[in-house]
């Protein structure tokens, strides 16, 4: 932590005598490479939240879940957060959790179920669930979903900025179709699309955003409800690859801020590393 936290500065400004108080150690080495970023990392000490359809309990490819809640919004717009006894009614959340587990075996997995309680109000539940997850201060939040409802765009924007400033890395799926959806388009999140290769540790930086990274998302063997697995395709499954890799980096380098983490992801991308 910087000295900033000890004595607050006046709003939006830096007095001359305070400059010495905000010295921040440079966490990055002269050359950032994969070995420095995630070599030997297991995800230990990192809390990853899967904001999705829930996670099936006791799935062999997922293992222990540290916490599971279901978030919904009642008719008065009040957020309800309750322990999730139901698990996963679709399989999608379990799939995402399994991908993170495979990459970051020691990471702590948390489930926030925002889908499956009914279609009406699904956008509200997504927003409320994300707000709750940001308040919990998870290190990484995997969001393999988005909303097309413009009415939520501004609130989502505020929330993703809040996550960014609070140190939560929000990893969000780009849409698979040419439609406007949120929050993956915001620069405060790490947005992910798919490549067609099989290596789970191969990821590319996209020189032409808004999609910032491409990870494995085609014909991925994923955990599914019923204790088994299926093969799945979609940006939904590319996203937890970047979440898992982010968990590895954060476990090895907990001081990195979200924007530094994004820089490390960029510098360690397959196309940046190999081709310069």
């Amino acid at each position: 932590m910087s000295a900033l936290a000890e004595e607050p500065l006046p709003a939006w400004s830096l007095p001359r005598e305070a400059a010495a108080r905000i010295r921040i150690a440079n966490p990055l080495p002269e050359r950032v490479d994969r070995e420095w970023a995630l070599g030997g990392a297991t995800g230990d000490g990192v809390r990853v939240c899967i904001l999705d359809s829930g996670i099936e309990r006791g799935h062999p490819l997922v293992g222990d879940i540290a916490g599971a809640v279901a978030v919904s919004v009642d008719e008065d717009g009040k957020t309800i957060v309750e322990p999730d006894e139901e698990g996963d009614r679709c399989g999608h959340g379990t799939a995402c959790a399994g991908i993170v587990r495979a990459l970051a075996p020691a990471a702590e997995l948390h489930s926030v179920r925002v889908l499956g309680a009914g279609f009406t109000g699904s956008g509200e539940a997504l927003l409320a669930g994300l707000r709750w997850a940001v308040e919990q201060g998870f290190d990484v939040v995997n969001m393999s979903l988005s909303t097309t409802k413009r009415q939520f765009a501004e609130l989502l924007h505020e929330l993703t900025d809040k996550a960014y400033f609070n140190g939560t890395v929000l990893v969000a799926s780009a849409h698979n179709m040419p439609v406007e959806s949120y929050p993956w388009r915001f620069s405060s999140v790490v947005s992910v699309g798919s490549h067609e290769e099989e290596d789970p540790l191969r990821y590319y930086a996209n020189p032409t955003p808004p999609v910032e990274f491409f990870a494995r998302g085609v014909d991925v063997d994923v955990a599914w409800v019923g204790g088994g697995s299926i093969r799945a395709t979609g940006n939904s499954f590319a996203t937890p690859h970047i979440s898992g890799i982010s968990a590895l980096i954060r476990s090895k380098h907990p001081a990195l801020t979200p924007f530094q983490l994004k820089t490390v992801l960029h510098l360690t991308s397959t196309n940046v590393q190999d081709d310069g």
Partner: protein
Amino acid sequence: MADDRLRAAVAAGLLGSEQEFARLLRSIVEVARAIFGAKASSIFLLEEEANELVFAAVAGEEEQFLVGRRMSASSGIAGWVASARTPLVLEDVQSDPRFARDVAEDTGYVPRGLMAVPLLEEERVLGVLQVLDRPERARFSLQEMELLGLFASQAAIALSLLGTARKARAALADDGQASLVAQLAAALDRLEGRRRQGAEALLEGLVTVLAGR
């Protein structure tokens, strides 16, 4: 009788467009099945208030009995696709015992693989298009995903246009009296707040008086 003709005009407008609606949907799933070389294809329409997905069209003569069947939008793969508004492509779905059971109960046929894509009109979800058991190939490709997305966009536009046309046809029925009703409805639609409440109360009163209740 005058009011019989009026009701008949409105009913005929609605009925005719429903049939076109069904024909267009059927054509969409037949084309989807052909494009992907798949065994089956279907469209679910989302009924948001009931939180249900309704089989609106199914490709193939033998599967027509499915049209009209309903399922909860709260569970399952199509439900997830509708609420998450994002497509899913799955293979080996038979290994999901719950999915296999639910689908078998609904259709008597459990696919090996499926592609499900939301039918989006700007920010609204109109339904879900499913394509079942495309031919087995080594790998799925992102080109297929793109094709699926483009095709779904086209299907959604067709659905949306048809819905709009249906409303317009009903409102602008050429019968003078139906047109009068349409004008009244349009005037009512433009009102807000207390004026709207007042107008509705007036209409209720009018119905009571005209019906002689």
